[in-house]
Structures are given as C-alpha cells and as structure tokens.
C-alpha cells in the first residue's frame, strides 16, 4: 500500500462534482426514492430495485468512480483514457504497490458507499414496520464489500489494460453480465411454441443462460446469507471469488509492467 496513491485516489474520487452527482443520484436518490414509494403505496418491489441495491448498484458506483478517472476531468489525468501514470510512477514505487493500492481504495470507497446505502434502506424499512434482524443487515453490508472487492479488481485491470481489443471485450462482458442481473431465472409458461415464437423464446433463453455463465466466470459473488444458512459451505463460490480477484490483480500488474513510461510532462 502506498499512502500517496491512496490519498490521490480518494481525493480524485471525492473532489470531482460530476462523479459525486452521479454516485449520489444512482447510488442513493433513486433506490431510496423507490424504497419510500414502495412503502407509501404498498407496491411490489421490482427487480430494478434489487439490482440497484445489490452488486449492480456497487458496479454503478464503482464505474462512476473509475470512468471518472478515465474521463480527463482533472489536471492530473489524461484525456486519452487511463490515469496519467508517468507522473505517479516517477516516484520509486513498484507497480504492484500501485495496483494493490488502487484496488484497495476502490474497494473501500465502493464498499463503504454501497454498505451505507444498504443500511439507510434497512433503516427506512424498519421505520415503515419491516422486521429486519441486525444479522441480515450486517450480512448485506458485508456482501456489498465483497461485491466491491471483485468489481474493483476487474475495473482496475480494465483501467490499466488499454489495448482496444481488451477494452471492447471488457465492455461487452460487463453488459452481458448486467443483462443477467436484470431478471431472475424464469421459464415462460404455456405449451411448447413453434416457428418464430419458438426461435424467439429459445434465443432469449440461450442469451440469458450464456449471460449467467459469463457472469459466474468473470464476476462470481458470494451470498453471505446463503453461506451462513445453507447446509453446506459454498466452497465453489468462495474459491471462484478469490481466484478471480487474484487473477485480475496478477493480470493488472503484468499488464502495467509491460507499459512504457516516459517521465516528464503530459504535453
């Protein structure tokens, strides 16, 4: 861990008004508004709500932070995408330290924001009469930190690996993963269809199945509620989660080690 890089990343995340506006809007205003409306009007909570308060919510928050870094919004960043690394790495710091510090800071910021959001939503629920045990709320908050850990690792790799082909694959994979989060697994009722209907149904089914498989491969998550209440320890989920984070970090360090740095001004 490098304190300078940690401070730089935290300040970069906190001092950009557009980033803060995006995070406050999507991370807090929308889900909290939806929750209050749900309680006031007795409406059913939607899958959109589940999305915004779960790992997709964490992904939105972290994407806001990380894309902000690539956007050239402040003087210390380049407009070509990616942080302006030459100035940071003129200090004698190993690139592994740089990656670890970036990942830890993203995890910390994303995890804290998402956990606070979950806590506020739980308190609103309790105020409206919902009975929630502290154990469930704590489990949800821990889960948001775990989500933040893996999404931050993926985004750290995406930030440093700036080959166009990798970027295209990463963006495509992110949207494919997101697609599977928009609806729970479901089968359409009714008799077997034929013709165009059958093709459309099978196509959708195939797309969602593929999307879930890719999601399990690139962003596996651990459900704390399942891990603590299921009859067996979720070994596959834990091993998948840890292995994916380690692979992303190794890949990020390997990629950044191969980049050439010309120390000097950005001009």
């Amino acid at each position: 861990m490098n304190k300078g890089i940690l401070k730089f990343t935290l300040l970069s995340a906190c001092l950009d008004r557009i980033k803060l506006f995006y995070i406050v809007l999507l991370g807090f205003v929308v889900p909290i508004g939806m929750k209050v409306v749900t309680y006031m009007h007795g409406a059913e909570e939607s899958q959109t709500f589940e999305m915004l308060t779960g790992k997709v919510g964490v992904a939105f928050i972290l994407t806001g932070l990380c894309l902000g870094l690539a956007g050239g919004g402040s003087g210390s960043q380049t407009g070509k995408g990616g942080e302006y690394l030459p100035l940071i790495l003129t200090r004698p710091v190993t690139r592994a330290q740089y990656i670890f510090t970036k990942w830890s800071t993203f995890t910390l910021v994303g995890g804290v924001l998402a956990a606070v959001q979950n806590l506020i939503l739980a308190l609103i629920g309790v105020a409206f009469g919902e009975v929630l045990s502290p154990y469930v709320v704590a489990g949800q908050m821990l889960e948001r930190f775990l989500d933040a850990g893996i999404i931050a690792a993926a985004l750290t790799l995406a930030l440093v690996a700036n080959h166009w082909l990798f970027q295209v694959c990463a963006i495509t994979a992110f949207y494919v993963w997101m697609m599977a989060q928009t609806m729970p697994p479901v089968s359409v009722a009714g008799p077997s269809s034929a013709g165009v209907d059958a093709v459309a149904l099978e196509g959708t089914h195939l797309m969602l199945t593929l999307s879930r498989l890719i999601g399990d491969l690139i962003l596996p998550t651990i459900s704390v509620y399942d891990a603590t209440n299921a009859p067996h320890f979720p070994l596959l989920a834990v091993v998948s989660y840890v292995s994916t984070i380690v692979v992303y970090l190794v890949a990020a360090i390997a990629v950044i080690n191969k980049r050439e740095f010309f120390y000097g001004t950005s001009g």
Partner: protein
Amino acid sequence: MARAADTSTTYMPRFLVAAAIVLLVARAVVWFNTMHDGKQQISSVRWTPVEEFKRSASLANGKLVLYKFCANWSDPCQRLESEVFINHKVSDLANADFLTVCVADRVREDGTNTPQIAELQKRYHVFAFPTLVIADANGDSKGVLVGCSSSLATYRFLARASQTESYVSAHK
C-alpha cells in the same frame, strides 16, 4: 511487500502468481466435482400437491397459503428448490407461517392442466415459472414473486407478508 527503493518498479510478487495458479486449479477441480456430484439437494419445505389441498385448512388455522407455481421441465424451478428453499431460514419460515402448496403445470407433458390448476393460474395471472403467490384464506393475493430470486429476497418476501398478516390479525 519489499521496500520500493530496494526493488525494481516492475517487481511481480511471486506468491501472487503462485496463488493465482493454485486457485485456478482448485476452482476447476471444485467445479468439476460439483457438476459431477449428481446429488440433487432437496429442501425441507413440506409442499402439499394442489390436488390434496383444502382451502378450509387455511381458514381453520389462520395461516396464509404459499402457492408455488412450477413445472417439472423448468430449470429455474429446480434451482428454486436446490438453492433457495435449501436455505433453512427460508424453509423454516415457509413451514412455520404458511400452508405450502405446489401447483405443478402439466401442459407440456399432458397437453392440458386439470381445471383446478388452470383456474389457479388464471386467477393469479401466472405467466412464468417459478412464481410464488401468497394468498389469504379467501384466496386474495397478498404478494407475488416471479422467478428464482435470491434466498434473501425470497425470505424478505415471505417475512413481509407474514408480518403484515400478523399485524392485521392483531389489530382486528
């Protein structure tokens, strides 16, 4: 980590590379074992087939009815049993506070459903499997959850309906 001044800036931690290889192999082994385990985990929820269910039982003990609309061919229905209702918090709540009724669709197998199943599907507007419907003793819907959601989402769905019912009963 070693001090940066003593190390090349392109230093790659070897333990991390070794950990990545070991964990990837472990993931492949665990995944392979899980896929070839063959053991279908069955939840402890006592589902009553809809043909054997009497609504008068709900009236008699004041419990809500939890209908599980499903089909044998549907993968998400099997996941609901093996991943959601296997969670003992969810199954304990379902067994304690609800009369659990399984409504198995037979259209793809037999070409048609029994009138009882068809009537229930029509009443609760079931268009996908699995669908969980919570109904009171009069058959009025109190909540619907479509698809195989997470165990926590399912638990909160059941708990909310159960708490609302208890609150209404206590304030009558």
